[in-house]
């Protein structure tokens, strides 16, 4: 061992650390399925941070363990270590390296955030109000007759300025589907303003540009779909939005992530991502009954565990008469 120069050991350690870090960064399996346009962006960024983090962790932890073993005081040993109080180049080096890493991560996160649509909440409002031109084109593509001029304006008037907005490829366009989402203790109510459908579960078509207008009726809630990597608080008095494309057909949990009272943990429902055809079927089936008051599908579990009272059910029914709830 003594013959091998220290630099070779350092080099080998460096290579091993790099390999382990890359492996961990790509095989950690810590994140759930990706089901929205935003998910791969977030995951890539997370993987990069995890790779860098693993490397730093191994290096620092390795140094600690190495030093503790190598420089521990043996029995009978007296005296102090060699006094070294500082080393300017070394200190500059390890200030510069983290500084460079965080500058890189900072710039990269702005880029990711922009691609997620984070910089454009309310985007469609501004464009459709000031430059109404693209609306027509979108209407043609839209699966439903969502964006008649009236609804577009209505949506525009309500469009929140906070949340995740249009991603660059749909910037300036009206969304394909708009859903009003209202959080209340302890349920989510989804209202489709164009059809008057009210539901306790979110149904959306895959691959379409969906905008959720989020509001809260009592306390703060937080709308989270882990598989979409998207979360936005529902804040009483402050309208917020989430705009995304679901990329995979399936059923995913909708979770309330902000403490909203005793049964916060039970405030769970589902988002069902349909194929466009299935979505149409679901829509036409439900539109028929939407004119009559419908109780959102609160399951038995909700009633049992969450103490959903008859008053609550009545309240929910009352809401269905006002197709666009929101706002205090």
């Amino acid at each position, binding site marked *: 061992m003594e013959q091998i120069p220290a630099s070779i050991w350092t080099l080998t350690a460096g290579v091993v650390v790099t390999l382990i870090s890359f492996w961990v960064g790509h095989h950690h399996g810590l994140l759930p399925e990706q089901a929205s346009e935003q998910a791969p962006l977030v995951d890539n960024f997370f993987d990069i941070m995890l790779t860098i983090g693993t490397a730093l962790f191994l290096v620092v932890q390795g140094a600690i363990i190495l030093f503790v073993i190598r420089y521990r005081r043996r029995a009978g040993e007296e005296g102090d270590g060699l006094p070294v109080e500082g080393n300017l180049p070394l200190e500059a080096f390890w200030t510069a390296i983290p500084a460079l890493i965080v500058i890189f991560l900072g710039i990269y996160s702005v880029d990711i955030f922009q691609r997620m649509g984070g910089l454009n909440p309310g985007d469609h409002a501004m464009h459709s109000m000031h430059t109404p031109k693209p609306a027509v084109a979108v209407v043609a593509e839209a699966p439903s007759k969502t964006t008649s001029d009236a609804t577009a304006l209505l949506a525009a008037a309500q469009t929140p300025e906070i949340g995740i907005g249009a991603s660059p490829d749909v910037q300036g366009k009206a969304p394909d589907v708009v859903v009003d989402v209202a959080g209340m203790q302890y349920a989510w109510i989804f209202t489709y303003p164009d059809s008057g459908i009210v539901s306790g579960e979110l149904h959306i078509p895959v691959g379409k540009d969906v905008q959720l207008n989020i509001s809260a009726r009592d306390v703060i809630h937080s709308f989270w779909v882990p598989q979409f990597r998207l979360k936005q608080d529902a804040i009483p008095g*402050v309208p917020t939005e989430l705009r995304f494309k679901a990329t995979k057909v399936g059923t995913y949990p909708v979770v309330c992530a902000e403490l909203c009272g005793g049964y916060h943990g039970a405030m769970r429902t589902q988002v069902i991502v349909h194929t466009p055809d299935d979505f149409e079927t679901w829509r036409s089936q439900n539109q028929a009954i939407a004119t009559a008051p419908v109780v959102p599908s609160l399951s038995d579990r909700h009633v049992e565990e969450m103490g959903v009272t008859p008053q609550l059910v009545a309240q929910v029914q009352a809401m269905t008469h006002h197709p666009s709830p929101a706002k205090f």
Partner: protein
Amino acid sequence: MAQAQLPLVDTPLSLPEHPKVWKWYDYFTFNVDHKVIGIQYLVTAFIFYLIGGLMAVAMRTELATANSDFLDPNLYNAFLTNHGTIMIFLWVVPAAIGGFGNYLVPLMIGARDMAFPRLNALAFWLNPPAGALLLASFLFGGAQAGWTSYPPLSTITATTAQSMWILAIVLVGTSSIMGSVNFIVTIWKMKVPSMRWNQLPLFCWAMLATSLLALVSTPVLAAGLILLLFDINFGTSFYKPDAGGNVVIYQHLFWFYSHPAVYLMILPIFGIMSEVIPVHARKPIFGYQAIAYSSLAICCVGLFVWVHHMFTSGTPPWMRMFFTISTLIVAVPTGVKIFSWVATLWGGKIRLNSAMLFAIGLLSMFVLGGLSGVTLGTAPVDIHVHDTYYVVAHFHYVLFGGSVFGLYAGIYHWFPKMTGRLLDERLGILHFVLTFIGTNLTFLPMHELGLKGMPRRVAMYDPQFEPINLICTIGAFVLAFSIIPFLINIIWSWNKGKIAGDNPWGGLSLEWTTSSPPLIENWEVLPVVTKGPYDYGIEQRKESTDEDEDEEE
């Protein structure tokens, strides 16, 4: 509390006719001696730590299964709220700032007491009523809105208990402002003239930064909370959206204090680390100035990162970006400190006793907590994991790994100074091993829970998360048991432990130049600083170079 009977070893100057140390009952009075106040803070904080810990164990027991079958969900939230509040406001902050700060600052700078001893005692005596208020609030259902107490939830649930919670926080806030003024004046004005600024122990630098930070941020919290109190009790509507108020304003006021509050907790602990590591590694601290100034840098940048707690709340895009960047920047001075401590170990003669083990344990846990903190600081990832168990994992790595390990390191290190007796090392090492295993077992798996989709602050959760939660709960029980050897050790050693002598570790900072426990007024004759607090090995080197020179002649 057998201090009174201790022989005053190594203090030839002590005169038998007037008492040199305090009697046990002095600890239950409005005593103005900084050492008495320091121990009062430490013991009270420790009692609250046990209470907060019991609440945590109750919560983890509930979380062993997916259903809500052990605690009523509202009681769960009351435990959750009070656990967080007690751990922060009645354990880490009072123990680190009030306890170690009061005990050590005057001793380290060669002063006889703090600048304003009566103010100091008053500041301490605000704490027990605050704790009593929190505990009494359980008679009214207990505050249930989390330690953040966001309105509107906090204005509508358990309102009496919530008001008591607010009063309790305002009391500890007042205490912390009083303490900060005292520390700043004491450090500024009262260090012995022979001590240059660059000989000031790093713990004192940390206390200076902490106090400045507390002075700037605490009044904002108090203001925010008092408005909340008005909303709850007097019909105002600062935060009521249906009457023109804004719920997001509260969050800004709250986090403007409470983000810096995490530095209030961690900076004094960093100070403790900078004292413990060089003594037991027998090496000068590496990069004294880097460590001192990075405390000040953390405290400046730390005032501009609060919105990273609000990325998913009512936050406009530019704010998300600005605060992502400022948050990432704080990682740099923090990293500088970590590297400096690791470098201090290099080439040392490391004594692996309990104090050092806890300090090294802190290093390794804090590295992980810091790295997950960087991921949380960036808006894209934070949006996914905010308010999930990933965050719970992160802040327990920082708070348990970073604060509790540091406090334990400090206790093992200065117990001989405070009591004149040594703690038992075997029990200490057992305590360390159990704590280290327990902490990692409890909090490491929580990262995965959060990433996979489990929100925090829930008494019931999706059954798919049950297996991992069970591991966390087992870890929490290991943690609960880890406290037993520690308690036995403290109680037994305080009475019967080996006599420590004035300077059992061969420390060079001034507190080791007086007797153990120090006499009232600390010194017969104030010490004169002749060398730096971390000059380990320098004498030795001088001698050996002198010898070399002799040989050459």
